[in-house]
């Protein structure tokens, strides 16, 4: 208990955990797009930046309440998600990857060249509204929402698209439209995450939202396990805490990412927890425990 308290009151740990929670929300959004629906997106940071700048500008100029600004940030990100989805969701694989990558760069360059966002100088003077409690309440809400989405008619349709698009379409699923919907939901969470980020850092710069940020978030999703919420949480925790606590990890971050990716592709192509339904694991463990002890501990 003491230890937990000291982590929460220690400003450094508090900041690290808060940032982890903020990026976890974005990663969970990307998990729906890439992990569940199977669509590449290399420009997720652009949607964070849309949520970040729009909510920050609302706070600064309109003085509207933070939660409203965050919601608007999420919805604006989702709107751009839909606008990007309409032309690009007919593309697959590499082409979709390149399009989202390009979109990410375009958004960044637009923010660099816009006056009201402070351009390349950045946007300062954003009041601090984000704290660890708000972030983790929203993390819980996000996990809850995604869990419900995945276990619904809508979520099953998304998983069907990942598994086999032609079969999905033949089952009566409008694949194109469902991909856009998945993109809208996933980018909404990116926008919310961006709003939290803006009101945590109190300063925004377009360079916060470059390709390497998108790549980080994609790594969170892929390392933990495509299609698995616990996997995304694990991936985010490992990859955002490791650089903080192991100095050498920070210096060789890209190198380690690369090596990790290759190792994962060889040994665990579905990620650390990919394709593992934890609820089912717990249930089977429990039913074994309740059984008559005939199980030899071989697994």
């Amino acid at each position: 208990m003491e230890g937990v308290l000291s982590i929460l009151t220690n400003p450094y740990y508090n900041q690290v955990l808060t940032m982890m929670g903020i990026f976890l929300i974005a990663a969970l959004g990307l998990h729906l797009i890439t992990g569940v629906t199977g669509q590449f997106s290399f420009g997720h940071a652009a949607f964070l930046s849309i949520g970040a700048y729009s909510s920050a500008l609302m706070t600064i100029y309109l003085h509207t309440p933070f939660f409203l600004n965050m919601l608007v940030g999420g919805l604006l990100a989702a709107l751009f998600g839909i606008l990007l989805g309409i032309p690009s969701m007919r593309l697959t694989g590499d082409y979709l990857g390149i399009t989202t990558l390009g979109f990410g760069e375009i958004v960044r360059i637009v923010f660099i060249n816009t006056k009201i966002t402070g351009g390349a100088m950045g946007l300062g003077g954003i009041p601090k509204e984000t704290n660890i409690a708000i972030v983790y309440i929203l993390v819980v809400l996000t996990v809850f929402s995604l869990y419900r989405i995945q276990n619904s008619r809508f979520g099953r349709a998304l998983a069907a698209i990942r598994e086999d698009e032609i079969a999905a379409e033949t089952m009566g699923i409008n694949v194109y439209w469902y991909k856009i919907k998945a993109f809208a939901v996933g980018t909404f969470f990116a926008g919310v995450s961006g709003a939290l980020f803006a009101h945590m850092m109190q300063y925004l710069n377009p360079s916060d939202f470059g390709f390497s940020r998108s790549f980080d978030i994609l790594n969170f999703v892929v390392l933990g396990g495509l299609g698995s919420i616990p996997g995304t949480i694990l991936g985010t925790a490992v990859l955002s805490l490791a650089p903080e606590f192991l100095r050498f990890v920070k210096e060789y971050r890209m190198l380690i990412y690369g090596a990790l990716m290759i190792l994962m592709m060889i040994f665990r192509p579905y990620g650390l927890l990919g394709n593992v339904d934890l609820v089912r694991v717990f249930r089977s463990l429990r039913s074994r425990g309740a059984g008559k002890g005939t199980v030899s501990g071989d697994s």
Partner: protein
Amino acid sequence: MPVLLELDHMTIRFGGLIAVSELNMQVEEGKIGSLIGPNGAGKSTVFNVITGIYTPTRGKVTFKGQNITGLKPYAITSLGIARTFQNIRLFKNLSVLDNVKIGRHCRAGGGIFGALTRHPGIKREEKTIAEKSLSALDLVGLTAKKNEQARNLSYGEQRRLEIARALAAEPVLLLLDEPAAGMNPQEKQTLMQMILNIRQTGVTILLVEHDMKFVMNISDCVDVLDYGCKIASGTPSEVQKDPAVITAYLGKEVG
């Protein structure tokens, strides 16, 4: 018997290859029709045109009196046509039950809002989806496997799961592309009974199958394709006697 499905001068070409040429064909309501022909004759292509995966180059597809040519697959499915695939296309990493539930997609309406709120209407809908899916699994004898991942099923079980998934959509017309392929004689016998049971529930069936004994035993009428052209059509016994069929197709097996 009224005509349920009609192909009218349907032609489809892939580049220089005419896969199906000027095909006229009818399937009557409540019947079991079969489409046979040598490898590459164009049978699966006909299925792909009926279900909207391909758009025909020329001609028309009519279902329940409605022109469905060029409609998207998901629209055609909700009109009441379901199918299985020759090269099994299950959702391999999903559970057997989820596969069937997805098959029922077109008979339900819950969206994102319903997923988040789980309001009473959605709970009722999910209950119906589960019940109907379980009864489809029961019909093909896969109830015990409902929590398995689809990829862990045996080949024959996967074929039956494809049928259950198609049945979950409560189709008017069921298209089966080589359902008996890779099955042993005993499994084929069970499958035949299963198909007859499905017809008993009022579903019209169109079958593509290479096993002649299977086709001749189960079909009310048979159409024969060769190199994309229809060369014969009639009852199983008429078709078996047809000289064009014997040379093109059965001849190889007899001789």
